[in-house]
């Protein structure tokens, strides 16, 4: 099993990159301290430095992203106009990774000069403080989430994230191509990052490309194919919640495959049990079709249906009736 990993830090510039990928939802602008864009953010939390600016330095979480909302900016302006800039100077003595000003506010030149001098980047977002905090918290939790990397493929079938695992050459990529052709969505070929994310009801796993060069897939005998060019942008997704693991295995006549589907098998990933199906591969078996049915079966399972149990009830009832007739 792959080992559990976690990012220790991200560069401040990563935030700008993410903003660009999200169509400038934050609309980040660098106001000052541009020389510090390669500083590390090591902590997935934010801090509002009201107490620090008012002179109370104890427990100042200086390693966090500092958010300057309307209150903080108004207070800074007041401190400057009252000529009481000591707290601002003290604030900038800390090794702060980045300050982010919300509501598209401007900040006094005095503060910008300090930021430049200390190479502490100051970014501005057009978002309101509460919206910004909600957005950045989600982004940081995602970036700093625990993850494992699998050698396998990831597709979305009926909104269920399906990770396809199996030895090299068993036909994982070919299966993915078959699934995309059947209308399902490509997420990653060959390497998958599975992240553990917090949700209101606990945790869930999310699968995404390990490195996002784009939707490329390698098919033996054909070469590399760009899935969105060949099948359309609509057949590609950036991520999906992991709902099913499919292990493709070589067909063996002496192996007892699950023939009923009455008992669920699970694979434990990052402490969560994910439904798992072992699908034996042999010539004449349409593997994309089988994976699609396995995913549909997972949809039905969530709705409480199980064909094997249904048949079982009918057979037992039938046998009972026969006995009563005798």
């Amino acid at each position, binding site marked *: 099993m792959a080992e559990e990993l976690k990012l220790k830090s991200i560069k401040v510039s990563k935030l700008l990159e993410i903003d660009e990928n999200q169509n400038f939802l934050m609309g980040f602008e660098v106001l000052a301290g541009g020389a510090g864009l390669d500083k590390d953010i090591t902590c997935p939390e934010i801090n509002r430095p009201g107490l620090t600016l008012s002179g109370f330095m104890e427990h100042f979480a200086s390693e966090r992203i500092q958010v300057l909302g309307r209150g903080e900016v108004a207070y800074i302006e007041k401190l400057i106009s009252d000529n009481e800039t000591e707290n601002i100077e003290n604030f900038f003595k800390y090794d702060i990774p980045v300050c982010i000003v919300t509501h598209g506010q401007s900040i006094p030149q005095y503060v910008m000069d300090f930021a430049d001098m200390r190479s502490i980047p100051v970014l501005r977002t057009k978002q309101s403080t509460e919206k910004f905090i909600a957005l950045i918290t989600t982004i940081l939790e995602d970036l700093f989430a625990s993850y494992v990397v699998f050698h396998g493929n990831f597709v979305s079938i009926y909104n269920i994230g399906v990770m396809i695992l199996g030895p090299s050459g068993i036909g994982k990529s070919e299966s993915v191509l078959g699934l995309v052709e059947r209308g399902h969505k490509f997420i990653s070929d060959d390497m998958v990052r599975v992240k553990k994310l917090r949700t209101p009801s606990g945790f869930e796993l999310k699968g995404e490309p390990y490195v996002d060069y784009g939707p490329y897939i390698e098919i033996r005998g054909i070469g590399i194919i760009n899935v969105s060019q060949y099948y359309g942008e609509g057949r590609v997704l950036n991520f999906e919640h992991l709902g099913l693991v499919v292990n493709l295995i070589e067909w063996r*006549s*002496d192996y*007892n495959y699950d*023939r*009923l589907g*009455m008992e669920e098998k699970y694979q434990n990933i990052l402490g969560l049990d994910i439904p798992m199906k072992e699908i034996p591969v042999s010539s004449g078996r349409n593997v994309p079709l089988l994976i699609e049915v396995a995913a549909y079966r997972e949809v039905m399972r969530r709705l409480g249906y199980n064909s*094997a149990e249904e*048949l*079982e009830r009918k*057979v*037992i009832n*039938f*046998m*009972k009736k*026969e*006995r009563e007739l005798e």
Partner: protein
Amino acid sequence: MKQVSVTISNEYGLHARPASLLANTASQFTSEIRIVKEGKEVNAKSIMNLLLLAAGKGTVILVSADGSDESDALEAIRFLIEERKFDEK
């Protein structure tokens, strides 16, 4: 070809789980294995075939095997049905 008569003796008869056990047991042999109940004849390696029999408790079935490992196959199936009772009551 060899044959043996066995009596289903577990409470719920040849329902899905026992059928799966029986089909898996039969599949481990290369012999062709058939089961007959009251004139209905089915392939012992197929779960869906076995369920068609609807063989309840007390039913006598005739198991026949044809092939190089026919004796072993019949003994394994007899043992599963009569002695292990499909690991059920």
